[in-house]
């Protein structure tokens, strides 16, 4: 008669989790070594679940709220989204009606000038197209795994940072080449973001 060897840790865990073979189950039921081992695994899992909880620190929410507020402010101030759409609408008005008075150095004027210029216009428009594409993907977006989440967060943070730099560069009258470079970087980051989202959607479709 064949004597079954004792169960290894993998087999015992499979048994505990209801994934083992009938043979392994039968062995554990009668074996004086494996039976108690299995019981010990149940016991450890119960003890793990019964470990005391830690009290979270108190001051975290104000930090989160402050960062969320800052991020929203940056988004509002930055190019793209509503600001740019408003600028484009204003640009349309100016084209149709012509300038009513001497150009003033208001932010809207600067946006219009940049969005319709030959050097910055194309890259700004590309940026807008990508933002629109992201809006299409965004409702579906989920966090699938750590590397993807890390990549998405890093790209989004990069865009927020670029928006801030663009805002400040324009405020200090930085030259056009610098602005074009910054817009180019923004477009690159957006393209990577769109590409990642597209891969995620494709993977989801295959599941």
């Amino acid at each position, binding site marked *: 008669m064949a004597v079954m060897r004792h169960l290894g840790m993998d087999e015992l865990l499979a048994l505990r989790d209801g994934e083992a073979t009938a043979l392994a189950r039968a062995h554990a039921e009668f074996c004086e070594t494996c039976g108690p081992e299995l019981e010990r695994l149940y016991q450890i899992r119960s003890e793990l679940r019964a470990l005391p909880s830690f009290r979270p*620190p108190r001051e975290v929410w104000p930090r989160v709220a402050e960062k969320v507020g800052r991020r929203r402010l940056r988004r509002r101030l930055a190019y793209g989204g509503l600001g740019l759409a408003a600028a484009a609408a204003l640009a349309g008005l100016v084209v149709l009606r012509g300038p009513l008075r001497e150009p003033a150095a208001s932010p809207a004027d600067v946006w219009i000038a940049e969005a319709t210029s030959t050097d910055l216009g194309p890259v700004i428009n590309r940026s807008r197209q990508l933002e629109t594409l992201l809006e299409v993907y965004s409702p579906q977006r*989920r966090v699938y795994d750590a590397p993807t989440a890390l990549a998405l967060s890093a790209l989004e943070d990069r865009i927020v940072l670029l928006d801030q730099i663009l805002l400040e560069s324009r405020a200090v009258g930085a030259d056009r080449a610098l602005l074009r470079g910054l817009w180019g970087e923004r477009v690159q980051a957006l393209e990577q973001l769109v590409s990642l989202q597209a891969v995620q959607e494709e993977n989801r479709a295959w599941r």
Partner: protein
Amino acid sequence: MRADTLALASAEVARARAGDLEALEHIYRAYQAPVYNLGRRICGNEEDAEDVLQDTFLEVCRSIGRFRGDGSLWSWVRRVAVSKALMLLRRERYRAARSLDGGADLSETVGRRPPEPTAPIDLETALGRLAPLTRAVLWLHDVEGYTHEEIGEAMGKTASFSKSQLSRAHQRLREWLE
């Protein structure tokens, strides 16, 4: 009270999805303890757990508009928290691997393990002695109820990796707790 039994009014969640900061704070208050505990158990220390808590809710505030309500809110928040905790572990592993000049088994590199205990130790101490990835797998599987497939996916590895880490964790606990 278990986190998955916490019920937030759907109106509250809808307000949060619309960006209402007060509603977002209610969600934070409801889930801060389980998220912090998850971070603490996976990362093994207060400082990293606090980072997990903060990063998780920054992500929740940023992405809650994408929560479609086809699962529980806690499941979604927990998935974000696990992702953030594992991201932090990965960052620490790379840092440790770089400082060790590479070549070492990354699952064992964070924190040089103290000498083997000469007498039995308690479960809390034993948990703290496990290599971070091994501990994370143990916690996610045995306590949070993740499957090996889910753990493998969250870690960017395979289900077999998760199984072998769980086996390793229990082997170690067996040696240390006896």
